[in-house]
């Protein structure tokens, strides 16, 4: 089956990006160096094409009731247009169908942005639960989504989009607003400040070019993965899926068990005992932690759910699903091919807004030199 393309895929190819298959979409992995792109985002600003994610508009008298039933957090608490929340869609067993950001756009209008991989499943799930309610569901494949991330992201985006400059400067975290035909949200998934721009597909290339003119680095999804890993953010399909509950993958904070709101999965979560907990790992031996590696702890076996090299820290880190009873500071072993390597458990995130936020163990010189030479 042919890979799906975004409004920018052919442009990325012409610009020299290395394109690869991401969840069935032909997306840029990098524009030359994944590590350089990572550093550009941490130190200044970078732009990612995330149009493979899907914005779904839900409108009508039943829209709020539907989302109050489907999401782990209460959209009823979104008091005004532009207010947003991060939430999970759960199945009846409390497993994670997807993680989403939901925006209120009016009294009976919401936008939910879902991941690329589970998008079709999500549409079917929402449609099924919306049966009988007065809701229209519109998948917005006509929109491109650009994520501009980094400490200077909003300032540079304001240069590129003068009509939205005041909005970009005034926007609070996790708030969105519409200006100049673009839906602008102060959200992202890199552990940096920044914004996500949703705009008509035909405008995507022009806005991308203006962002580059304003000094924003073009980035591939490779850097997005190392950035979100350093930020301790779960990736759907790796760190979370329908077989784990939010409490088992560090997302208990995204579930609202207060009040009486009955949402899908609530009953299962209320009675469930977690089998796992999520912790971060910092590799002390040589090598690279990768998804799927076995973790041996004093309390039993676990699994690396996301692993890789952390450019900001100059060492390998991972998110891991480990048995209860393992605490930050514990030493564990990870099976890297035919060897057992030592790693230390930490509480994620590893990096927040460019600064390491875990105690680096021996040999942290590379991280220090990176910080001192922006």
């Amino acid at each position: 089956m042919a890979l799906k393309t975004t409004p920018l895929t052919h442009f990325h190819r012409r610009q020299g990006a290395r394109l690869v298959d991401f969840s069935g979409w032909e997306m840029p992995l990098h524009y030359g160096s994944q590590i350089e792109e990572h550093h550009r985002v941490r130190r200044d600003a970078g732009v990612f094409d995330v149009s493979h994610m899907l914005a779904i508009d839900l409108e009508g008298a039943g829209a709020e009731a539907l989302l109050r039933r489907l999401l782990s957090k209460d959209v009823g608490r979104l008091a005004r247009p532009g207010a947003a929340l991060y939430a999970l869609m759960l199945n009846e067993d409390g497993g994670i169908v997807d993680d989403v950001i939901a925006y209120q756009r009016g009294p009976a209008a919401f936008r939910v942005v879902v991941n690329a991989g589970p998008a079709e499943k999500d549409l079917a799930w929402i449609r099924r639960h919306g049966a009988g309610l007065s809701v229209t569901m519109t998948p917005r494949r006509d929109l491109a989504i650009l994520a501009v991330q980094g400490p200077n992201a909003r300032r540079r985006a304001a240069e590129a989009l003068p009509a939205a400059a005041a909005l970009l400067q005034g926007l609070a975290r996790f708030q969105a607003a519409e200006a100049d035909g673009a839906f602008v949200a102060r959200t992202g998934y890199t552990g940096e400040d920044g914004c996500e721009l949703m705009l008509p597909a035909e405008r995507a290339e022009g806005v991308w070019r203006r962002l580059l003119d304003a000094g924003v680095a073009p980035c591939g999804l490779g850097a997005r993965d190392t950035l979100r890993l350093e930020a301790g953010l779960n990736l759907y399909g790796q760190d979370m899926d329908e077989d784990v509950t939010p409490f088992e993958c560090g997302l208990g904070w995204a579930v609202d068990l207060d009040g009486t709101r009955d949402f899908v999965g609530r009953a299962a979560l209320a009675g469930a005992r977690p089998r796992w907990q999520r912790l971060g790992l910092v590799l002390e031996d040589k090598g690279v932690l990768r998804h799927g590696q076995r973790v041996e702890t004093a309390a039993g076996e676990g699994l690396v759910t996301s692993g890789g090299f952390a450019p900001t820290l100059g060492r390998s880190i991972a998110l891991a699903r480990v048995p209860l009873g393992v605490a930050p500071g514990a030493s564990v072993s990870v099976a890297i091919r035919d060897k057992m390597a030592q790693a230390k458990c930490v509480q994620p995130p590893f990096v927040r807004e460019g600064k390491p936020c875990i105690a680096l163990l021996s040999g942290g010189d590379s991280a220090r030199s990176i910080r001192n030479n922006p």
Partner: protein
Amino acid sequence: MTAPHHLRYSKTHEWARLDDDGLVTVGITHHAQEQLGDMVYVELPEVGRAYKAGTECAVVESVKAAADVYAPVGGTVVAVNELLEAHPEQLNQDPYGAWIFKLKPENAEDLKRLLSAAQYQSMVDADEG
């Protein structure tokens, strides 16, 4: 210049060079490093250990993935490039200069079974379609 003419190539993207001292120097090709992306770690083989042709003897890891490096001909490892442990990025910057290990070959004639630069280039071009 993506595949220098004085080298021989394996189908698994190693290059091999027969040196005047009779040793075979091995690295990974420009195409291999380009496919893997930024290198972050190299696991070198053990000096003194013998490998058959086509067996795994080193690992290169990029931010994206780990890849095995295979012995292009059978032989015993006599030297490894320890500089790569601190600077794996040299595999990206200078793939034909940043050798990984040197083998004392069982039979230097085996190099003739490897691909020529032209054959290797055609294989890469065909893969990229």
